[in-house]
């Protein structure tokens, strides 16, 4: 075969042969997920795969209301210490094991007792869970916990086959068995995860793809190029700078949802010697820093206007947003006055951030903005794992970091600002905030909780242990012809009713 013939054959077959069948959906992911065991998993991107693989007890709507999934209904006891859930009787795990109350008990116990489990904090309030019928369970709590439903709408509520869990143990991570609309097919590390349609799913008719192929492609430009070349059907986390290009492309469509999370600057208030600066010790200095930032300009310059400026742990689109504290405008005079009151002329502050171009650009813009008020910010670009360790060890003054967000506001706040919070790297500690946030957990009534959060927020807005900057918007790009896709603020891809024409 001559070279020319070989080349012609290759090109011809490239034009003819697509790697995927017509009923495949190829989804481009930003990273390769970690272990596919809901109890051991820790990555955001892993949750996107679990969403198709593992049904949860509870699901959410785009408006963050809780709706039944494996649980058909639930009720709280008057003292808030017992949650009774009724369960579907038509669900079955991928290995044929029926889904029932015993399966729920086994799953919750695994999440709470498996030494490797990353779900322990999420289920800390659950003292025990008991089957009170074939399809009814009762959760008994050590204290009222209004956040439990939110936890059960995520990985802590995802059900694994108890048969497979007992047989495979930790190896379940490489061969997960759940009860979702798609079953595990195969995985090639860093290349693809293939899921196959589960015909025995109770809602199988709502799922229209025979196979889902998840392809981790870290580079955003290459991910989009794959979509434009027809090698992907959809992708998650489109770069803001590519939104205009996607919108202008007739062969593509675009979807977005403001995320539940935030990006901000965590300030070291009491975590070791490096907290002992006016930035860490005087709230007026932090207020001045916050006032010197123009969040709208940041959004326009760094994020092409597609993200949402923010000043709280939840975005202004959230029902939990405190309207009494709107996003402040830039006010250099007020910032300067606060610094004068704090006795600070100019202040050197070091802030660490992840060593990627976007976060670097963000911090450079902030560096220039706050300089006008009197801050000499030096930037320390750090690889993420090192940044995390420096933050935990208190080896920082300020750290530009974010949180992907949780359905319940508690998930964005409690662990970060309570005295013993597991993620409280600033070591902010205020008895009133602790009391209020603990109390909020016990209140089933949303209005009453909102009121308590507002009182905590008054203190947090004054103290600013975290200077919130913006809320990321989840951006998806899809091939034209995909219908029925609904963007959710948790960034997950839900495929019920999604079709490809």
């Amino acid at each position, binding site marked *: 075969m001559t070279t020319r013939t070989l080349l012609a054959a290759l090109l011809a077959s490239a034009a003819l042969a697509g790697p995927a069948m017509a009923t495949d959906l190829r989804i481009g992911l930003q990273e390769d997920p970690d272990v596919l065991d809901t109890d051991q998993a820790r990555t955001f991107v892993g949750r996107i795969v679990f969403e198709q693989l593992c049904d949860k007890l509870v699901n959410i709507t785009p408006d963050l209301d809780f709706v039944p999934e494996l649980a058909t209904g639930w009720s709280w006891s008057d003292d808030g210490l017992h949650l009774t859930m009724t369960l579907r009787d038509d669900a079955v795990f991928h290995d044929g094991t029926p889904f029932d109350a015993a399966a729920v008990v086994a799953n919750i116990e695994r999440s709470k007792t498996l030494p490797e489990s990353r779900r322990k904090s999420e289920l800390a309030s659950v003292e025990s869970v008991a089957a009170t019928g074939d399809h009814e369970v009762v959760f008994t709590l050590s204290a009222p916990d209004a956040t439990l439903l939110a936890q059960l709408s995520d990985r802590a509520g995802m059900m694994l086959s108890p048969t497979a869990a007992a047989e495979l143990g930790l190896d379940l991570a490489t061969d997960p068995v759940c009860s979702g609309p798609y079953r595990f097919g195969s995985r*090639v590390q860093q290349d693809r995860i293939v899921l196959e349609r589960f015909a025995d799913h109770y809602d199988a008719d709502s799922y229209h793809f025979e196979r889902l192929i998840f392809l981790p492609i870290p580079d955003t430009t290459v991910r989009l190029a794959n979509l434009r070349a027809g090698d992907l059907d959809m992708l998650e986390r489109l770069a803001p700078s590519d939104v205009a290009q996607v919108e202008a492309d007739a062969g593509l469509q675009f979807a977005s949802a403001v995320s539940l999370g935030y990006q901000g600057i965590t300030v070291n208030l009491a975590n070791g010697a490096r907290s002992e600066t006016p930035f860490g010790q005087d709230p007026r200095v932090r207020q001045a820093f916050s006032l010197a930032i123009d969040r709208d300009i940041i959004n326009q310059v760094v994020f092409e206007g597609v993200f949402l400026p923010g000043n709280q742990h939840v975005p202004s689109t959230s029902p939990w947003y405190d309207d009494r504290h709107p996003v402040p405008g830039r006010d250099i005079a007020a910032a300067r006055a606060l610094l004068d009151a704090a006795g600070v002329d100019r202040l050197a502050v070091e802030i660490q951030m992840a060593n990627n171009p976007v976060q670097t650009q963000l911090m450079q813009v902030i560096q220039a903005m706050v300089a006008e008020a009197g801050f000499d910010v030096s930037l320390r670009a750090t690889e993420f794992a*090192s940044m995390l*360790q420096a933050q935990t060890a208190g080896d920082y003054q300020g750290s530009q970091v974010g949180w992907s967000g949780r359905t319940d506001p508690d998930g964005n706040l409690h662990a970060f600002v309570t005295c013993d919070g597991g993620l409280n790297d600033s070591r902010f500690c205020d008895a009133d905030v602790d009391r209020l946030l603990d109390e909020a957990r016990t209140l089933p009534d949303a209005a009453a909780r909102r009121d308590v959060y507002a009182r905590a927020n008054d203190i947090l807005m004054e103290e600013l242990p975290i200077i919130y900057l913006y809320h990321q918007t989840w951006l998806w790009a899809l091939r034209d012809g995909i219908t029925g896709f609904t963007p959710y603020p948790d960034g997950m891809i839900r495929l019920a009713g999604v079709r490809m024409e």
Partner: protein
Amino acid sequence: MLPFILRRILIAIPTLLLVSVFVFMLQKLLPGDPVLVLAGEERDPEVLAYLRAQYRLDDPLIVQYLNWLGNVLRGDLGMSLRTRQPVTALIAEKLPVTFQLAVMAMLFAIVIGIPMGILSAVKKGTWLDYIANIIALSGLSIPNFWLGILLILLVSVNLGWLPASGYEPFWSDPVRSLQTMIMPAFVLGTALAATLMRHTRSSMLGVLQSDYVRTARAKGLRERVVVMKHAFRNGVLPIVTLSALLFGELLAGAVLTEQIFSIPGFGKLIVDAVFNRDYAVVQGVVLCTAVAFIAMNLLADVLYALLNPRMRMTS
């Protein structure tokens, strides 16, 4: 020849030990606690302590190293902290991918670089020589990531000729496999082709000026025979050695190329492992790369000896 090879293998053992010590210590010097990465948002002290104990991260460094070394000698490279897969299985899965990429890149480099080098030497000082040099300089100067993205946009997005990225094993679908590998191999091979071209050119220039070539010409042999039969056979000797050595370097160069084209090979594996502080994977991959590098060096020596009778006599 056999004693020569055995001697080289024996010398390789302390080299590999040194490499393993160096990589092990270097990793431990990296800031960033693997347990914090592994735990994700879970900060339950019990969980953190369990993870630390499970992976023996609390043991003194020397104990950790000796444990690892003992397991390696038993053929166990450990378990990935991140995905719970055995490192040997990961390597067995990724090595053929990167090997295929490296072989194809090397083929590109040889097919482009050596003829260009010969042509450039034979036509020294002409416009052909200048063009070949410009191409070589461009090949060395253009960054892989830029060339890769440019090719994806042109060949995949605009022309729709080849897949933008991804990988298909050769034995499962050879055509698709070649389609996915053409662009990455070309990108990876460009700098190599340029290096080969420059070395072939200078080697050939030296040989073409030697007495025996002049004699061959004086005998009235055709220029084509003089160049290819007499000059090239001698001129190619250093190129063979260089190619074998460069093949080892290709493994390192594949890191970036694999990232751009999302090829699940060694490069992607080690990048992810470093960012996740997946110590066992980093150590396993580096050890395997060192073995490959040493093997390629050995191959270069053997090839050189085979091609050069004088070397055979000496060895």
